[in-house]
């Protein structure tokens, strides 16, 4: 908009949307990731939304038909980062015969996955939806994201930039959301608001409705009756039979059950010690929320369940990562950041590691086995706002058993960069790194001093480590992906998704996927697009600027 005065800007400030500095691909040792799709919201919203809320993204896969009687398998919802919730990982291994793509729980997908088979599955799923023109069943993979006072829903596999649906909230701004792939009773999407209010709805029902309001919603913590503190993070309890948890800015986390009417009286005792962890259960069986966990002084910034749902990780304003045994309601372990608040956290698929990112610009790798920080990733020039393991990554040298397991993970920051990292446990122990091909600076690592090995009893929190004591790792790739500070990232089988605070999403296709797939999926998906109720989401023009 105001482009008159760029001449004098320094190189790092060329942050206009048309910025020529942004490339549409980035290189990794395994090949190029290419910008495939961009998703955004109607531009008219920008001025209202700018800076008011931080966009988070949830990935949601809607299956063929509404399945009211899904077996209560462990739920698929798990989080991959503060800005991004993903519920789609399991859909690929969900036992559907047509999708023979193996999705290995441990670390990364099988290498036998080929581009063509993936396209095949896409075609299959898309074409079947064309049979139900009149009764749109909403099947597909969607991105749900919040901007300002609205929730937008975009079709992930469509080249259309604009969302297919927008839902406006008159009372407050939606700030966090989560989707449960295997939800019973239809309600699979939960949304937390700035006011503390929480809604559960059926995603399919929203897509079928043409209006701009939430339909068929169940309302919890109505008008902040239980807590008027801002929601910060929300998650379904994996295998929790419709239970979900909502974290708030006042350091409390509430446990709800979606089957229960939210109207029951839920009052909890006054918290005596703000700094002390405590759990209080509702006095009446009809109450919803059913429990309150007071976790820390100050805001809980992000929460993440381990894939099996056994453990819950939280990070907060006080700089502590805490890991709880969810069913026992006990603190297992945790530790403090180098300094400042922690903003995001994510589990590895095998539950062995937790990533955190925060205001010390560091990506922290926490080992559940060692109950301590095992590596600090240095490379961001600002706060780290999103972290995620790439669960589809398979290490090139992981053929034999007992070999060093290598993990791939990503991080995004307020420096507008996406960083990819390799974590090889051998390297952590002997922390001198080989020079990464990207030419990024290497950092010499600290000494493995003896006081590192002190095992701590259950339930204790570690103080902030000393700089020289923690091995450092360097990123494999550092790429400036957006013009605005980023708020989250997510890995899918085909792509890496990055999202910025202002609500722009970029889909980066993995090497070897983009060319073969883009053609196919575009044709397939353009047909399926026609059948979708487009009206509601298409507010602005598609030529979105800045």
């Amino acid at each position: 908009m105001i482009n008159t005065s760029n001449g004098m800007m320094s190189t790092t400030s060329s942050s206009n949307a048309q910025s020529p500095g942004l490339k549409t691909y980035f290189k990794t040792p395994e090949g190029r990731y290419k910008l495939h799709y961009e998703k955004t919201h109607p531009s008219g919203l920008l001025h209202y939304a700018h800076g008011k809320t931080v966009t988070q993204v949830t990935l949601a896969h809607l299956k063929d038909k509404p399945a009211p009687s899904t077996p209560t398998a462990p739920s698929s919802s798990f989080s991959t980062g503060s800005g991004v919730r993903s519920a789609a990982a399991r859909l690929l291994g969900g036992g559907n015969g047509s999708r023979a793509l193996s999705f290995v729980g441990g670390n990364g997908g099988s290498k036998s996955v080929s581009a063509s088979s993936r396209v095949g599955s896409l075609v299959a799923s898309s074409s079947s939806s064309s049979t139900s023109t009149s009764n749109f069943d909403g099947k597909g993979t969607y991105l749900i994201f919040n901007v300002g006072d609205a929730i937008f829903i975009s079709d992930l596999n469509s080249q259309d930039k604009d969302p297919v649906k927008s839902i406006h909230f008159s009372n407050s701004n939606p700030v966090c959301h989560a989707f449960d792939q295997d939800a019973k009773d239809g309600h699979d999407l939960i949304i937390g608001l700035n006011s503390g209010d929480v809604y559960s709805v059926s995603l399919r029902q929203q897509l079928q409705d043409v209006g701009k309001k939430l339909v068929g919603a169940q309302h919890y913590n109505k008008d902040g009756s239980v807590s008027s503190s801002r929601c910060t993070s929300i998650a379904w309890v994996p295998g929790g039979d419709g239970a979900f948890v909502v974290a708030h800015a006042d350091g409390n986390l509430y446990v709800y059950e979606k089957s229960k009417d939210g109207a029951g009286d839920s009052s909890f005792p006054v918290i005596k010690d703000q700094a002390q962890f405590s759990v209080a259960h509702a006095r009446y069986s009809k109450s919803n929320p059913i429990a309150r966990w007071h976790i820390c002084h100050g805001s809980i910034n992000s929460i993440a369940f381990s894939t099996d749902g056994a453990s819950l990780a939280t990070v907060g304003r006080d700089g502590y990562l805490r890991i709880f045994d969810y069913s026992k309601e006990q603190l297992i372990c945790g530790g403090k950041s180098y300094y400042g608040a922690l903003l995001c956290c994510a589990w590895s698929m095998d539950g062995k590691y937790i990533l955190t990112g925060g205001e010390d610009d560091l990506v922290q790798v926490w080992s559940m086995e060692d109950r301590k920080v095992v590596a600090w990733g240095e490379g961001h020039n600002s706060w780290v706002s999103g972290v995620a393991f790439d669960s589809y990554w398979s290490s090139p040298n992981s053929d034999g058993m007992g070999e060093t397991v290598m993990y791939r993970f990503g991080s995004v920051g307020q420096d507008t960069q996406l960083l990819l990292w390799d974590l090889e446990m051998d390297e952590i122990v002997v922390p001198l790194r080989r020079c990464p091909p990207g030419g990024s600076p290497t950092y010499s690592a600290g000494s493995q001093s003896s006081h590192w090995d002190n095992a701590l009893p259950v339930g204790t929190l570690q103080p902030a480590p000393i700089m020289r004591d923690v091995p450092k790792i360097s990123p494999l790739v550092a790429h400036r992906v957006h013009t605005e500070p980023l708020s989250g990232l997510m890995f899918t089988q085909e792509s890496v998704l990055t999202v910025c605070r202002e609500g722009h999403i970029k889909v980066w296709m993995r090497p070897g996927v983009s060319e073969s797939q883009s053609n196919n999926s575009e044709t397939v998906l353009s047909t399926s697009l026609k059948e979708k109720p487009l009206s509601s989401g298409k507010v602005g023009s598609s030529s979105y600027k800045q």
Partner: protein
Amino acid sequence: MGAAGSKLEKALGDQFPEGERYFGLENFGNTCYCNSVLQALYFCVPFREQLLEYYSSNKSTGDAEENLLTCLADLFTQISSQKKKTGVIAPKRFVQRLKKQNELFRSYMHQDAHEFLNFLLNELVDILEKEAQAAKSDQETSSPPEKMVNGPKNAQANGSHKDPLVTWVHKNFQGILTNETRCLRCETVTARDETFFDLSLDIEQNSSITSCLKNFSSTETLNAEDKFFCDKCCSLQEAQKRMKIKKPPHILVIHLKRFKYIEQLGRYKKLSYRVVFPLELKLSNTVEDAESEYSLFAVVVHVGSGPNHGHYVSLVKSHNHWLFFDDENVEMIDESAVQTFFGSAQEYSSNTDHGYILFYESLGTSNKS
């Protein structure tokens, strides 16, 4: 002084800190640069306490000549001894004295808050040093009040002064930087120490204070026309230079260089870059592993799009509450509101309130378990 004050009192309720006063400062025409810095200094508790102590001990020796130090002490005493908990005070004498002292601040033009802070701290130090010297010549035998404790180590810090005095202003704000230059021919490292009251950092778009501090201490190569005269080689040589913090100050003042001279334009321009600052900070660019943690307690904010106009306000943390001072007005704000003053990720943004001077206080050396 009714409405705003009582509103703040209501907001704090019984949490209003015992003995604390929250007073707005009247604006005498573009004196917000002064008001915003004064509030930050007032809520720099060790500085305030030592100034009040100085005032009470100095008053007993009879009324000395008026200077910037006495005016500031007067003002702080006036605030702290108010019967009411909130209200507005006119820092008239202080501002008059400031204008008398320095013609730079005499006009009604928009002034730079950092320049004012710098001038004020140096002026206070000068006054204290002169007083100490006078006291010394008065009574040669008795030991001067605040002699340097670890003399030999830092003795040359202030260069010309034979016997540098460490006043309470120094004790609060002074840190020591060491400028290490390594000759690339003979590998000799020359270290030169210099003292500082604040760190002025170059800023980049979408970066953090941590990153700006890293850049501040990054290695710079001196070559071509900018070679280094190596005493050992007795000639100009290529060299590597880096700045490290030798002694971290108790109060760390960080000045963001938001006003940059743009040669093509022949004038200054305000950089509205988004530079995030954490509420807690550690310095990693120190000579020794200091690892001491700092906590943010005040932010001077520049409001406006250009360097020659605009407004200054300040955010202050007092007894775990954040307060917003805008000349006469004082409001309570949420801690999370601090992040609305980081700056703009895009240049066109309508947000023009940008953190300009940050005040961090050391929490003492952290856990060395």
